[in-house]
């Protein structure tokens, strides 16, 4: 998959959410690559936004250079008012969205030139739906969202979307662990979809909040629910809740834990695997499609992995196309534009 194009991998997804395993995973590079590939696409122009703030030219956390996002004439972008003057693309402002961020109202503009843009879209995933509708009303085609794993972004790709997951050497000094952790994230993103049992009767909340973090109540609730084959969990399934379940003596064989979407599973890999080994299955009510994994063999810390080996081992582990977006050879191929 060395020279695969992201555009081909996302198919006809209406929404594409970009997720990164860590800083410097090459997520922005992958996004820029996809934007460039879509620039040549006829039809309705793509629209760009982010969940929360992203797209600064310096990474504020690690202080490393981070590629800014470059968009093309005719495309649309939704970003916070205060970031407009920091984008250097010529802009025609089309609308205020009435959705607010800490950097002001999210505004929608059309690029009247090519150029750099700083994105800070809605910080609340629930605001993406109205934003999508507004963008569509203004003639946008696909929506590309710069997301983050921790921000519950996968939900934005449910129904008609796709997810691209970026990972790289910055995640861990060990290639082994980088591959294993990424494969785990990919597995969560690929969980099968199931309808909730008796959904018309309303939610069945399995896990309550215990201020001491003890899962006693959770276990009672679980035992009450035993004999059910599928338990619907409203909200997030957290690490402490799942660890409590793992330690408890209740029989777990044949049980399916059903969450709303992949973003609601917030478990350590070990806990997930422990429960899986004891026969627990996981499923989501809104599945997403993981279209590709991109790899960056170079870390911000100075170490790097052998490029081909890294890509190949990742490929074996994740079961979806893997490509290295950091290699420049095809990036500026004139045929790309």
């Amino acid at each position: 998959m060395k020279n695969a194009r992201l555009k081909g991998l996302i198919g006809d997804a209406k929404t594409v959410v970009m997720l990164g395993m860590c800083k410097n995973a090459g997520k922005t590079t992958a996004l820029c690559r996809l934007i460039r590939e879509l620039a040549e696409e006829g039809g309705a122009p793509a629209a760009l936004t982010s969940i929360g703030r992203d797209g600064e030219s310096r990474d504020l956390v690690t202080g490393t250079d981070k590629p800014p996002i470059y968009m093309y004439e005719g495309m649309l972008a939704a970003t916070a008012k205060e970031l407009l003057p920091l984008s250097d693309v010529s802009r025609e402002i089309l609308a205020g969205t009435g959705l607010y961020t800490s950097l002001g109202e999210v505004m929608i503009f059309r690029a009247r030139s090519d150029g750099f843009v700083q994105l800070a879209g809605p910080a609340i995933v629930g605001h993406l739906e109205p934003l999508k509708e507004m963008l569509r009303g203004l003639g946008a085609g696909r929506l590309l969202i710069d997301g983050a794993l921790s921000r519950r972004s996968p939900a934005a790709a449910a129904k008609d979307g796709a997810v691209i997951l970026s990972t790289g050497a910055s995640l861990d000094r060990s290639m082994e662990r980088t591959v294993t952790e990424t494969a785990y994230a990919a597995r969560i993103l690929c969980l099968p979809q199931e309808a909730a049992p008796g959904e018309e009767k309303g939610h069945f909340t399995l896990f309550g909040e215990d201020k001491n973090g003890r899962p006693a109540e959770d276990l009672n609730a679980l035992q009450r629910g035993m004999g059910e084959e599928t338990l619907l969990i409203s909200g997030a399934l957290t690490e402490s809740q799942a660890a409590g379940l793992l330690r408890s003596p209740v029989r777990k064989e044949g049980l399916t834990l059903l969450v709303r979407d992949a973003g609601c599973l917030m478990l350590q890999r070990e806990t997930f695997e422990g429960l899986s080994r004891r026969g627990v299955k996981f499923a989501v009510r809104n599945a997403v499609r993981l279209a590709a994994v991109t790899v960056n063999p170079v870390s911000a810390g100075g170490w790097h992995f052998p490029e081909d080996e890294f890509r190949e081992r990742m490929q074996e582990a994740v079961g979806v196309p893997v490509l290295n977006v950091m290699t420049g050879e095809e990036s500026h191929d004139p045929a790309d534009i």
Partner: protein
Amino acid sequence: MIRLTFEQKEELGYNTVRSWLQPASPYGAARLKEEGFYGPDRREELEQEFDNVAVLLEALADGEAAVLSLQQALSGLKEVRGTLAACRERSLTEAELYELTAFCLRLRDCIRRAEALPGHERLHGAGFISPDPAIRILHPEDSSRVSFYVEDARTPALQEARSEKREIELRLRTEAEAGRPALLEARQEAVRKEEDALSEIYRDMSEALRPLLAVLEQDAEAVGRLDAAIAKALLARRFGCSRPVIGGESLVLEDAVHPQVAEALKTRGRAFVPISAELPRGVTVITGANMGGKSIALKTVVLNTLLALSGCYVFCRRTAVPLFENIELINRDFSNAERGLSSFGGEILRFNEAVSRLGDGLSFIAMDEFARGTNTEEGEAIARAAVSFLSKQSAVTLLTTHYDNTAALAVRHYQVKGLKKLEELPEGTVSGTGTDRLRLIEQAMDYGLMEVEPGTKCPRDAVRISRLLGLPEEILQEAEKAR
């Protein structure tokens, strides 16, 4: 000046009814919030407000499409008064210039639709001034498409910067990796030129807009007034409200309804019994049985009076409302406990405050069960003395009370018809749960008012009601003996 506390307005249902007014724009919302109560000094303004509601009701009767389409257009207007104020001080940013562009284009649309309303020429304060001069500055292409963009041709400097930038950007599309850094650097220079050219243009635009700001503010005001009047007309139409007659010295209500109570009754399958009363200058007393709805009657009168004086149509078949200088409500105040006062103490303090505010102008004073919170003997004496005092003031006073003797001093006395239908009920205890019994009594009540000779005794039926509610017979017999 009408100064009621938030809690009092809440208690009266005034806040609830005002919240039913649904303006489409932030301007209408601001207008409704700032409108306040109309006093004798704003008589003309109040009549104009009613005229506007009348025109809009006619327009609605004519076919609601025109009004609803105007309301739809109004809902697209965003608040720009802060931006207008900022423009006096400094250059606006591109986002602010967009907001003004959107406002002016949508305002033009609103004006067009307002002028299409039948009878619009009779609307007061809706004399809009065209925003076209501002649109020519902000949006010279003058399309109806809402957007903000400075075209290249605006200034030679912008044209030059943009064409330089565009040329580099085209080359960047196909340039190999090695050549990109130099091109990106050259682009930075073109970007800087574009930014300089644009900030000069934004400054010129802001300067050119400055003389037009007052006109836009005036239009925003007119929009607010129109929007608020539409909200009032829609509410009036929904509930069949009527235009109050303002003036005179008597408060007259015919078939008045308390809409909040009526809505609550409706959900229980019951209807509000409208009340009618005429309250001349002096003291009017309402007496009546327990559970007879005296307080509801008082609230109905005060609420409709307040609505009339805040420029709303009223929930009555016919009303005449004097242009009161002052409205005072003296009721049991639940915040007294926090201030360490008994309800009786709180009432007396509030009475003092109200009296200190009485002036030469006509006041309206509403008192619910005044002096009820102390022993009957002294309570009645105090209530009587207060009635005697208030009779001499320049005020229309309405008092609900248990004390018959108080009513003897009143100019008018109404009794809640109340328990007449009770004759149809069984003599003894009604079977069923407490709620069932209460409901039965409710059904037997006639909440209407009837005028009686001042001082007419109330029917004595507390014992009978207690029996129906299942008070032990032993206690009832003891009570009957003592009567």
